[in-house]
């Protein structure tokens, strides 16, 4: 009797999981690749963007521009909107600063800039001039900050990191100056 029930269950599960396998295969998303689009002329010319020197806000109302002045062994970076200087930093000549593509917050009130100095990458959020990268390193000394990519909303910066051997994402909230770990990674 037990053997019979076992055989029946075994047969049921073989059919069930076999059917699930077929079902999942048919539902598998097969996105079109360039190889599939034979009759469509796909773009071959890619115009490279140069985001480092200036960036207009997503609504077009503000433009952040970076100006550099080198004197001796130092370079001063000034970030301006129209004629207003919003942030400046003086660094050794071999350092570099730039304006990320998603520099402006959605409400145009905040922005962030990137600095590379002696192999260390920093990100400054303005106003406030928080060095978000340094704050993160202090809070999570064993984690690696990979990139700050942009804004999830008007005060939340998105940080992509590697922590405990896994890729993860955090928000940095300018308002509360706190880090919030997210359940999803934002690639």
């Amino acid at each position: 009797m037990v053997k019979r029930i076992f055989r029946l269950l075994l047969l049921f599960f073989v059919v069930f999981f076999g059917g699930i396998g077929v079902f999942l295969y048919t539902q598998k998303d097969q996105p079109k690749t360039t190889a599939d689009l034979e009759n469509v002329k796909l773009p071959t010319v890619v115009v490279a963007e140069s985001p480092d020197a200036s960036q207009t806000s997503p609504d077009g109302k503000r433009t952040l521009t970076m100006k550099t002045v080198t004197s001796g062994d130092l370079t001063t970076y000034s970030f301006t909107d129209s004629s207003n200087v919003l942030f400046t930093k003086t660094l050794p000549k071999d350092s570099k600063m730039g304006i990320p593509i998603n520099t402006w917050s959605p409400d145009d009130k905040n922005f962030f800039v990137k600095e590379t100095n002696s192999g260390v990458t920093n990100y400054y959020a303005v106003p406030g001039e928080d060095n978000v990268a340094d704050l993160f390193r202090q809070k999570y000394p064993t984690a690696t900050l990979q990139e700050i990519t942009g804004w999830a909303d008007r005060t939340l910066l998105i940080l992509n990191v590697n922590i405990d051997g896994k890729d993860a994402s955090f928000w940095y909230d300018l308002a509360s100056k706190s880090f919030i770990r997210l359940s999803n990674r934002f690639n």
Partner: protein
Amino acid sequence: MSRKDVLLPIFLGLSTVVLLFVVSMYKQNTFCANSVSCVKNLNVSVENDSVGIFNGREVTPPKIDLTADAERASKVLGDQTATGEKHIYVDLATQTLYAYQGNTLFMQAYVSTGKWHPTPTGDFKIWIKLRATRMTGGSGADFYDLPNVPFVMFFGNAEVPASMGFSLHGAYWHDNFGHPMSHGCVNMRQVDAEKLFYWTDEPGASGGTPVTIYGQANI
């Protein structure tokens, strides 16, 4: 084992699989990119005094002045000398949109495609353009309610019909373009969506400007 012993579990197993398949098909056919608003209201909707909700926080939508649009359109487009068919391409892998007229690149821009639901791939056509509309969807912590979503261009094809509500549109609630962020739509910076909106053809009986979406987003 008797014949009944063999046929009964096979029948039960296959029935379960068929039931799952039917439920899945139902879910796919009733899916809409914006799960609440979907394509219920296809009139232009301008709500300048409304406040939106996104990520559990209030969001202020852009003010829209429809009377200024006609003048804006010519300023945004500038001189147009290119000839040929217009065609939009969206590369999900690089999160980049290219708009071509013939062999001339009209614009290139970073976008944010589906994070919470994949943006569909294939060849589509824009079937309606709305200067602004309200988009509502999600639930719980993911709930969003966004008035004055600007420069909306709904697209579809036979496999991804208009009822599924996928569109290209401006997004004023985040600035993380170049990375998947949406529930399936193609989010654009407002200035980019505006430019594309005025450039695309008005949809006719056989549809509007073609849109090809390809590749695989890193989500």
